[in-house]
């Protein structure tokens, strides 16, 4: 690919960085509004029409606050961790087809599913580092919890992600997205359900909200962060949520593919992508609202005793369905 203007526009504006940022802010607003309505209250209302600009306002407010670096922290990691985790999450979007093709046209290759999931793990690891580098018992506890939780739940995530890969006979996300005449969520629904639950744990939402359980450990790994760094930390959490939902959309709901009516196909593909993303986000938000927060040992017990065996079994069942649908030649 040549480094010309079209390429730069694709990477930076649409469907690249700027689009992803706007999408993140929009999804954050949707989340907050849905959660508020489920709890019978209003949610963001006054900033912008129906409160749509509230996430922007929060981000900008945090950017203007004083930036305090406590005295004894591990300085380099402390300053770097939020930015790196945000960038790695945003970078993983490059491999996802949003408007029919991925952001950088020839970037997808066989095996980029594994790469994207690994990038998610690495970025989570930087979240852990942000807590570890602030020398504060609350941050340390939060960091230890986030490490334990995401490492534990990564395994079922990988296993479950292999099911659509098998059904599509490819490890490339765009090929998986493109080969879904019927979305895999209906072909192997049990895998989809388990994937959503594991995603809940990866994204640290209730009932797996443990790493930043504010009533127990104040702020978790975010405790010592202020100002710009806190803004980026929060932004990277939001991007993580959108990325997780986007992966679920690509793997199980057919990605950006859908009926195209008149006009450019890029517009319709993006529209379908965003709509499916919102469906997944509303689903995860519903799960957030109906559960209390578990203890870390309870979450781990659920992982090793329940989710992991179930995901292995469901992978086997999915392989069975796959072989039945597309018998080996």
């Amino acid at each position: 690919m040549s480094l010309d203007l079209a390429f730069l526009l694709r990477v930076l504006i649409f469907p690249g960085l700027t689009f992803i940022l706007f999408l993140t802010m929009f999804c954050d607003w949707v989340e907050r509004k849905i959660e508020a309505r489920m709890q019978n209250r209003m949610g963001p209302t006054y900033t912008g029409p129906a409160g749509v600009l509230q996430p922007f306002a929060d981000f900008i407010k945090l950017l203007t606050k004083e930036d305090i670096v406590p005295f004894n922290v591990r300085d380099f990691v402390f300053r770097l961790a939020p930015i790196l985790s945000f960038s790695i999450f945003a970078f993983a979007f490059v491999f996802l087809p949003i408007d029919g093709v991925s952001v950088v046209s020839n970037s997808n290759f066989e095996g980029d599913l594994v790469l994207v999931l690994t990038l998610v793990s690495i970025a989570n690891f930087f979240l852990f580092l942000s807590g570890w580098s602030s020398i504060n018992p609350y941050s340390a506890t939060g960091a230890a919890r986030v490490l334990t939780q995401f490492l534990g739940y990564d395994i079922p995530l990988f296993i479950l992600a292999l099911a659509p890969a098998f059904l599509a006979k490819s490890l490339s996300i765009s090929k998986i997205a493109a080969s879904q005449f019927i979305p895999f969520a209906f072909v192997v629904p049990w895998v989809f359900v388990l994937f959503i639950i594991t995603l809940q744990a990866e994204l640290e939402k209730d009932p797996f909200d443990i790493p930043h359980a504010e009533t127990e450990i104040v702020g978790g790994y975010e405790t010592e962060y202020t100002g710009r760094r806190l803004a980026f930390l929060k932004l990277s959490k939001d991007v993580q949520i959108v990325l997780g939902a986007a992966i679920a959309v690509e793997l199980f709901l057919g990605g950006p593919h859908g009926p195209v009516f008149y006009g450019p196909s890029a517009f319709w593909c993006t529209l379908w992508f965003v709509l499916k993303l919102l469906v997944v986000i509303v689903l995860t938000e519903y799960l957030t609202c109906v559960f209390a927060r578990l203890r870390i040992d309870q979450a781990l017990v659920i992982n090793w005793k329940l989710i992991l065996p179930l995901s292995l079994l469901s992978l086997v069942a999915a392989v069975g369905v796959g072989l039945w649908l597309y018998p080996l030649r």
Partner: protein
Amino acid sequence: MNTDKILEALSNALGDGILQTRTLRPEKVCVQVKVGAHRDAVKVLLNQDGNAGISAITGVDLGKTIELMYHIRTCNTIITISVNLTKENAKIESIADLIPGANFHEREVSDLFGVTFEGHPNPGRLILPEDWPENVFPLRKDFVALNFQSKMENSEALKDNGRHSIDERLVNIVFGPQHPALIEPEKFTLKVDGEVVKEVKPRIGYVHRGIEKAAENRTYLQDIYLVERICGICNACHAACFCQTVEAIMGVDVPPRARYLRTIILELNRIHSHMLLLGHVGFEIGYETLFHYMWRDRERVLDITEELTGNRIVASFITIGGVRRDLKEDVISRINAELETLKGRMNFYRQLFEGDSTLKMRTKNVGILSRQDALRLCVVGPVARGSGVDMDVRRDEPYAAYNEVPFKVITYDEGDSWARLMVRLDEIVESINIIQYALEHLPSGPYRVRVPRIVPAGEAIGRVEAPRGELFYYVKSNGTASPERVKVRTPTFANILAFVKIAEGGNIADVPASFVSLDPCFSCTDR
């Protein structure tokens, strides 16, 4: 009656250790004993009743001597053992080995009056700050409020009092005074080993406002509003208890309509407090949906309170001699309608608490307080009832209209956080029933009697079942328009030791959940 049997047992055991007997109104016995004989007297009283415990320890400055009164709750009444100590030699043996629940009461008296309790397991400051000057005791009559130059750089005083923990490799996690889990400030130092809590050291007194001393400078009428503001959530109970006690000194009987109206506002207070707590539990365990729903439904109770008293939270409804305003007929039907809706909502919450899996995972078998520990630590209220101890002042010693209104006392036997929450949930439904009964059978007549402003000399004890447990008042009057001594023992003060017991040996992650099930109200604790 019971009291005669107890007096007989005391005189048999103590012989001439008993100096005199007098009555604290209404019909409570006070036995004055010699200084060393108080321990035997306490032992006799503990033998009389397996459920006996200490309600409060009051200190009164009588000029040359300090009178120390041990109010022991036994056989559904309060027997007071009183001892007179001279100010020069204010030492007495501690009873903390007989009754572990007396631990904090003795520390408070030693802080505020300067009495030394020999043999106390962990003496030290409880209510006053660490840098309070030595030998200055606020509740003595010769106390002069100087401008203290405290807040000095007294870093020595602010250290951990030099008491070493069991094991030096334990990590200190400080829970409070500022913490998102606590609504009011208190400090609990948890010493943890990994995720297990090994030792808990509470330090209270962060919101001590000196209300008992302030009450001595104001008239009785002004004191009603002062004690009402000890706690925002259970304000009606404080007003009711104070007014009851003063009415007992004066020998005034409140008209029946006033008694029923007092019952109504007290039960409304209870519903409001329990709903606040159950929502707060939701917040602590990460269940925000429960929090929002519960507090939305709590608004109905606040609206009813506003119709009845003119304000949403602080009722200012009860006064000496009755209540301050009447309940009109058209308001009754509105209140009834709201209460019916509330009952339906409580059904939903009951199903939720019994059926929701994550909620039960966080509260069942968490923070277990055994029945034996509950009795030894003399806990009160839903904390005791959740561990199977059947005590409720409304039934044991009825006040207001409770001898005429039928109701059940709810107990659960499990002793864990879930049991304590279920006790409160069921009590809400019982309170709704009580209010509906009271509204239906509201007697007509005056709602207030006029009382003189000067209260004759005397002393009295009053007890009320506040939402958090037994609230205890002792008022002594010297015949002027201001009281001589007002002693308040709030329920959370009696329950703080239970928290130490519950948290030790458990997980850190369980600390907020079990803590909030005790329903702590620190404004009450510190006064």
